[in-house]
């Protein structure tokens, strides 16, 4: 029984940390793409 709780706790921790890391990675890639696009537009104008 204790093993089940240990497993659930591990799943929660790695889902929480992994989810946050994925959120950061996605946010960075979107922002970096946007910065590049805007710098090109800025240079053209």
């Amino acid at each position, binding site marked *: *029984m*204790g*093993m089940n*709780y*240990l497993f*659930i*706790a*591990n799943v*929660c*921790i790695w889902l*929480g*940390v992994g989810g*946050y*890391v994925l959120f*950061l990675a996605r*946010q*960075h890639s979107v*922002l*970096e793409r*946007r*910065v590049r696009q*805007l*710098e090109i*537009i*800025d240079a053209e*104008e």
Partner: protein
Amino acid sequence: MFRIYPKILMILACASMAAMAVGQYAIWFHAPEEATMGLVQKVFYFHLPLAWWSFVAFFGVCAASAMVLWTGREHWDVLAGVLAEIGVLFSGLALVTGSIWGRAAWNTWWTWDPRLSTTLVMWFVYAGYLVLRSADVGGGKGAKVRAVLGIVAFLDVPLVFLSARLWRSIHPAVLASRGGGLEPEMWTAVWINVLAWGALFGTLVLARYHGAGLKRRVEAALIRIQEKTLQ
């Protein structure tokens, strides 16, 4: 804003991954199985570092908020927001793992114990602080309003830390008794994991701060383009 270089972030991320791997080895292979609770006690090696680093994060929010009031510099306000976000994540995970461990050890998912209650209040206070930040409260004086909130929010943190000592609590105060009832190998695993989670905490803070810097660059570029278009 301080500039965070992606290469430094990458090195830090690799270092924290290596530290977490060593931490996992210490939990599963070095630390012995606890005699009374059995394997479920190993939740402790995650639960304690998560709780401690959330305290560090909230102390950081208070310190950064004080720096906003003192210097008026924007980067302290950004840092306060970043630390609050990661503090809410870590304290949330500490609450969840504590609840699961409580179910195994005390046969209940939740009890209105002083330590548990004050921790839940702390989580809601900082979650509310994040909601207020995203709502852009205070207009032109927003940074100062957020700074005052960041300092006031910290009032609950010492209460959480001392609650298990001040009032009758079923939650153990690990540092209150010498040795905390743990074997030396268990303490080794605890400290390795505290350091590993600290490395991950530092990496997440810098990564999030870097993201905030990118967001500022996008906003600045948009303003520049808008000004050029209007000319």
